[in-house]
């Protein structure tokens, strides 16, 4: 059946390869020039001593990678990138599953609730992050006020949320999770509404309780869609520098630096293009792995 369909498809579709090529080549050319070109330029810079404001450039081999790997800030950055990405995804996927279950039913005011829940994702992230910066302010933080009011801390002795390394890391994690939870929720919700209603109902008739139905039937059926949500979530968090840049600018003492934010600090603010390019290239291996899994999900969806 599948074979027969493919044959018909290829006969019908290969109608005007020339016109087709004329129609897609401007877009392909643009992508090759402005995504492909810069990508190779980044590799090229990483093996050179390019600096902003210096036209001359020499090949220096692996020198940049060596000095980057030896710098303590880089080690912190790579550790943080993984901590932020993995921990926030765990928080997000648990939260998003719970939220998707509670949003699945229809109830009055569902539209407004959905709008409010979506705000962190749909509003520009730099603006959401500056909102958090105010909430986590060193003096006028509403969280600090609440903790003092609850007599957990004495006035003026409460911690500075963005000023101490561990708390700053926790704050960045919090904002990443906050930002991505709505995105995963709507994707999971789309997956849930695609499951035929009679399957969970049949399970309920057979005496399976709510949790058993969810854990043993619904969630396994949603595996492809959960992997889509997780893959995008990992990519968005791993490659983001906005949250860190706005909240802490990598501080205190580089303790919240991530690969992208360190690349910016070295490559643009520090004018050392070569070092910045070398740091950002460390994003590539994980991106390749994630892209591979993304392709597998897409391929499986195509086969089914």
């Amino acid at each position, binding site marked *: 059946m599948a074979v027969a369909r493919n044959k018909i498809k290829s006969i019908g579709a290969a109608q*005007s390869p020339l016109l*087709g090529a004329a129609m897609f080549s401007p*877009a392909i050319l643009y992508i090759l020039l402005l995504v492909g070109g810069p990508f190779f330029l980044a590799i090229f810079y990483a093996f050179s001593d390019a600096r902003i404001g210096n036209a001359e450039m020499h090949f220096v081999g692996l020198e940049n990678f060596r000095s980057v790997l030896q710098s303590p800030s880089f080690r912190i950055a790579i550790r943080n990138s993984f901590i932020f990405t993995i921990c926030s995804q765990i928080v997000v996927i648990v939260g998003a599953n719970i939220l998707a279950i*509670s949003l699945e039913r229809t109830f009055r005011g569902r539209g407004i609730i959905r709008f409010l829940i979506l705000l962190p994702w749909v*509003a*520009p992230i730099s603006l959401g992050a500056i909102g958090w910066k105010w909430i986590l302010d060193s003096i006028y933080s*509403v969280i600090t006020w609440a903790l003092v009011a609850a007599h957990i801390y004495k006035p003026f002795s409460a911690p500075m949320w963005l000023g101490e390394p561990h708390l700053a890391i926790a704050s960045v994690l919090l904002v990443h999770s906050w930002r991505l939870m709505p995105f995963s929720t709507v994707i999971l919700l789309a997956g849930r509404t695609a499951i035929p209603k009679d399957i969970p109902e049949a399970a309920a008739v057979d005496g399976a309780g709510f949790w058993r139905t969810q854990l043993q039937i619904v969630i396994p059926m949603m595996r492809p869609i959960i992997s889509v949500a997780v893959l995008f979530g990992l990519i968005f968090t791993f490659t983001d*520098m906005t949250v860190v840049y706005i909240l802490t600018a990598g501080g205190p003492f580089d303790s919240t630096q991530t690969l992208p934010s360190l690349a910016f600090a070295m490559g643009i603010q520090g004018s050392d293009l070569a070092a910045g390019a070398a740091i950002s290239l460390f994003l590539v291996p994980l991106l390749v792995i994630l892209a591979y899994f993304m392709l597998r999900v897409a391929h499986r969806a195509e086969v089914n």
Partner: protein
Amino acid sequence: MAKGISRRIWGKVVHVLVLGTFTILLAFPFYWMLITSFKQNLDLYTMENNPFLFNARPTLDHLKFLFTETRFVRWLGNTAFVGVAVVAITLLLAVPAAYALARLSGRWGERLGIGIFLTYLVPPTLLFIPLSRVVAYLGLQDSLWALILVYPTFTVPFSIWLLMGFFKSIPKELEDAAMVDGLTRFGAFIKLVIPISVSGILTVVIFTFTLVTQEFVYALTFISSESNQMIGTGIPIFLVRGDVYYWGALMAACLIASLPIAFIYNLFLDRFIAGFTVGAVK
């Protein structure tokens, strides 16, 4: 029976509690922007005041400051200008390409389509360093044209992907019939396919525009002067003078810039999600 009813009531209570908690956690920063925007400085910066309440009369001072003493309106204009230009470029590149890949190029087109989707996964944080040199080489530093040149790198791949799915859902017989009636293949695309794809194209317009308003890394890297900022960079960077944060104006600006974007995005959400789910949901 009574057990069933009490269980249902319990279920309702848990449902309300869970939804309520999540909604408050997720929406709180925006509520906080709202209340901060209308508080007098005296009220904002007195530590003994309960920050959840107005301890002094609400004020419009921050809004007045924002619209008269800062470049906020200019940033809104810049963002709209770049947004419109990028939408136009994206449509010109993505609509024909998506149609060609969905219809004219067979399996080859499908593979190319997936390849294009993968370029969407190449993040700005990988490309901003080499692109900053490209922009400098073209003499576009600190110009909105730099953003107009570069932003389609992330809007075009995703738009092609969204539109490919859309074009595939149009029955082939429609075009065949139009071609039997004497239209060329390209004529059928212009006169038939585009008009019936208006809603798909509109989705791309909205998606592209919201992506432009949300972008941060390129705007931060390429634009330096205050008057050329986009909202995403101007508000967090230029509403801070030295170490002084104008929190009232800052929060008002965040809210005013966020809400319209959030509202429009919300209207088209289901279609964007269809693009993200790469066919994992039918």
